[in-house]
């Protein structure tokens, strides 16, 4: 009796399922019913916005990016995990001369920065913002610029409008883009301060194919510089020879040696003693000079590299420095010529 009941129940269950499987119309109706019952989510999942927002821009400004001078300067663009480059190496460097770290978006820019610091610029501000709205002159706040009457700078938006060039916005937004120039230099000539703006581009000849937008950007930079009385140059990114860049970097970490107190007082004597033995090889001369100045050999090499950086010892950094050979003179002359040509725009 019980067996019969179970058997009937199983058969009924099988029939029910079979009818559902074999009836596509029923399946479709079930599906439609389920779809109708499923409520769409009222609050869509929150996505992290990667585009620029006014809040982000404000926060960035309040944190001091793009402002300051000397050691207090913070570049507008920095290196972050999310902005690697597919076209060039990026460099986060410690700028010993300026006592701060800086960000360069190509190795060429870094090498140019080394050269400019060697040439003796008063301040170097990389990734310097050309604000879209009217703002104080870029020289305002610089040490020694207190008494200078500086006009208010026009914003790049206005300059672009006058030039008939599109200013540009952050992608996916209507927020005006904050354009940057690669270098803004402060140069002291006597007691006068002046600014030089430099844009580094990878093209080397006039025949190079250049994107139209790149030319527009360069024109905007030029007009901005012109309006603010800033000298403007476009450098080829490879303007610094590899050899010279390597040798500049070799001396760069000794450019600021205030933290090595035993070396600082001996620098002047070290340089004059070294210069008095022009026929000795560099290593022998350093060894001898260190003994004379009562410095350890390690400190002697530090003093040598510092003096080469400051050109207290006249060594041509554009020629290979082989320490088993005598130093090649001509660095001071080279520095003067490069300074005149690259920073002051004077023919040599």
């Amino acid at each position, binding site marked *: 009796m019980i067996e019969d009941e179970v058997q009937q129940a199983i058969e009924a269950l099988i029939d029910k399922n079979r009818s559902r499987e074999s009836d596509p119309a029923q399946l479709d109706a079930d599906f439609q019913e389920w779809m109708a019952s499923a409520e769409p989510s009222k609050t869509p999942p929150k996505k992290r916005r990667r585009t620029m927002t006014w809040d982000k821009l404000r926060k960035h400004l309040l944190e001091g990016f793009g402002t300051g001078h000397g050691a207090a300067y913070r570049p507008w663009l920095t*290196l972050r995990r999310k902005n690697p480059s597919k076209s060039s190496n990026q460099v986060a460097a410690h700028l010993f001369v300026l006592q701060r770290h800086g960000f360069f978006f190509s190795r060429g820019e870094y090498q140019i920065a080394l050269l400019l610091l060697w040439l003796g610029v008063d301040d170097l501000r990389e990734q310097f913002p050309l604000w879209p709205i009217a703002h104080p002159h870029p020289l305002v706040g610089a040490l020694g610029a207190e008494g200078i009457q500086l006009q208010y700078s026009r914003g790049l938006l206005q300059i672009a409008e006058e030039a008939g060039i599109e200013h540009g916005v952050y992608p996916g937004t209507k927020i005006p883009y904050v354009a940057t120039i690669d270098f803004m230099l402060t140069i002291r000539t006597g007691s006068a301060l002046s600014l030089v703006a430099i844009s580094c581009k990878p093209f080397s000849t006039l025949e190079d194919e250049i994107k139209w937008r790149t030319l527009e950007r360069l024109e905007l930079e030029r007009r901005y510089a012109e309006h603010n009385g800033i000298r403007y140059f476009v450098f080829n990114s490879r303007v610094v020879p590899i050899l010279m860049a390597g040798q500049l970097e070799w001396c760069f970490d000794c450019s600021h040696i205030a933290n090595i107190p035993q070396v600082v007082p001996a620098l002047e004597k070290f340089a004059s003693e070294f210069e008095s033995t022009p026929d000795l090889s560099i290593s022998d001369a350093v060894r001898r000079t260190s003994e004379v100045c009562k410095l350890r050999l390690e400190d002697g*090499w530090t003093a040598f590299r510092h003096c080469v950086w400051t050109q207290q010892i006249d060594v041509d950094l554009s020629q290979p420095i082989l320490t088993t050979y005598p130093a090649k003179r001509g660095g001071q002359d080279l520095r003067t010529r490069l300074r005149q040509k690259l920073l002051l725009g004077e023919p040599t």
Partner: protein
Amino acid sequence: MRHIGVGFVFRVTQRHGQIQAALHRVIEINGDPNGDDCPLVVIQIPEQPSPRQFGKKQASYYSRGFKRVRLETLRQLLEEKKAIESSPPPSPSWWSRSDAELLAACPKERWVRHGESWIAPEVHKREKKWAWIEPLIASYERKEIPSVAELDALVPARAVELEIKPNQIYDALHRYFAFGEIKDALLPNTPLSGGKGKERYGKNGVRLGAPNTAAKQGNSQLAGKICDEQDRQNMRDGYQMFVRRGVSRKDSFLAFSSTYYSDGYKVENGYQLPLLLLAHQRPTEREFFDHGPEKQDRYAMLRRIFGEAEWAKDYRSLIGTAQDGIHSLGQVGSIDASPIDVNLVSCFDCQVPIGVPRGLFVRDAKWGLWCGAHNVIGGPGTEDALLTILRAALSKAKVLRRLDLNDIHPDDIPDLLFVRLLSDNGELRAIKGIETCAEKVRTTIEFVESGRADRNSPSESGHHARHAGLDHKLPGTTYGRRPKRGEALPISKALLNLYGYERLLWQWMHWANTKQLVPHLVPTEMKRDMAGKSFLPTRIEIYRWADRQGLVTRPRMDPLYLKSVLLPVYTASVVRNGLILHRPRTGERVELLKAALFNSDYIEQTALYHNFGPNDPRHIQVRVDPDDLSEIILVDRRGVHVIPNVTNDVIVVREYYLPDLVAVNDANRLKNIETKSDVDQAGSDLRLSRAAEIDLAQAKRKAADAEGGEGQTTASKEGVRDNQKRERGAQLQQAAEQAVGSKTATAANRVAAGPVTTVVPPGNVVPLKAESRLKLAQINRMKAFFDKGG
């Protein structure tokens, strides 16, 4: 006076009448050459036009026909320097070749049948043109016409006769005379004449070539694919990839089809098999072998097939290396992480595999000098990268001592804090990594282009050398690949622990620095300087020489300061006897790693334990080298303090890594779970035994109280002493009774010791002698005495 005769070549610099400003040749003198009124026939010599500029029409290359000029006029032009005597233009090199040579230089497929033999196509053209003008030339040579200039008049009739355009005959005729009446002047100007070939493609829905049977019968769907430029490109690429010696045409074609013309895959018998597109939706085998061998730019093909990054890495030509511009040792280093390719076992249990750790390495970019390494179980992060930089910057004496490598001199692995470090966009590319390096340690980080590992080539070559020289020779190695079919899983062969691997690693790095001969890296300056002195061309010798010559860059940094900024930060709990580290990355939960304890006089003197509020967690941040638990660093407002490990377990101090401490905690937790049953059972047994014993004692007490109260204890001191005296006597009596085998106990004993059950000795027990019983009683007595603490 200059002699002007037939063959005289002159260049007119300014146009004069019909005479163009060009090169000309005198081809006939109709009169007395000594007289002034002598008419000449001249013809312009065509010169090769300048290369055609993009978008401009090709310059004319046509000889402009016969011109008449008087001898006097020519002389005047020469005198006035409006014309200058010139030499004929150099004739193309192939004009001087024989027909056989031209045929040999021509690809066979371009040969043209000429009667019984073959000729080159340019010879064929020459013969054709010659046939056009040969009757005209013959009539001129037979002097049937008064002047060569009259030949032009015969050309139209000849053109009608040949059914070609007259200008074709004009061109051939004038070229013949312009170049000095040589037949080879009718050869083309260039060896490959004609415009650039243009590829043909099917258009308007019609394939090239004959329609197939299906198309003929009206089934246009099966007509086949109309190949476009992309298809042709695919065929050329596929041909380069798949057509190999020893592979049949069919297999090559199928390989090509499954690569370029498949639509997903199906899974069959556990394999993923590509689903080919229908045959009429992909090129045919014939098309593949027809268009595949077509010439193409192999360089571009490689770039296309491998992708930009792979191509840039392996195939592009290099204009420089990562070593360019490095002047000194220590100036530029490179840092990178890679798996060590060896499965390891745990430090505390050699049967527990822990997988393949990752290693971070720092080496000099120019000479490949190994400076530091750090191995990480799990994925390396920014802190690990900073730790590796620290490893490279500090003396290796401690590391080597900890690894018990006492025969390696620490100076053989130099301590270098590089001025610039090449890095990929990996572990260091974070705000913490960038700012710590660039601001605090003053090391410049150069991030190479993403997808361009070749720009950090010193690291990549280092990984390769290390894998080949060490990792792939160890048990449990993965060989840097997935195990092949039938191969045992490498993890099952894991044998070494991290401590053992690091010992081998540092030995290998020592070998690479001091024993591996690298004569190709020795600079010529060093060779000259060391001339006459014996030296081994090893990395360490280069380093030592460079150090003597001031070519080693060492930024000045205090090692303790470096530790205080580069070591990773951990949280520790302050307990009464020191600091105990927390297990990292547990969120809010605190798990103490109690296997190691750190303490120092400074902790005691500053009363650190008492410096917290009553409800504040006693937690502080410390810097810990996870590979060296012998000490930790505490940074506070008073400075940087070294807190040593004061754990009694020497092995923990010397050999344990931080992950080992974590693993010990885990192992203990696991052991707790596994032994939970036994532990609970033992606890329960103990508790119930205690309860049972107490119950029994209470029952005895109750029975004794019920018997009359004689045994009531006295609360006074004297009473207790009396009781103790009586207890000892009773115990002695009981022992003696037991020793003599007394079967009954006195009532007093019964009160003191409780009811004694009668024990019947089993049959196999041998009774002791009387003296032995006495000895046993003495022993029992002594034992009871000691148990009481007497």
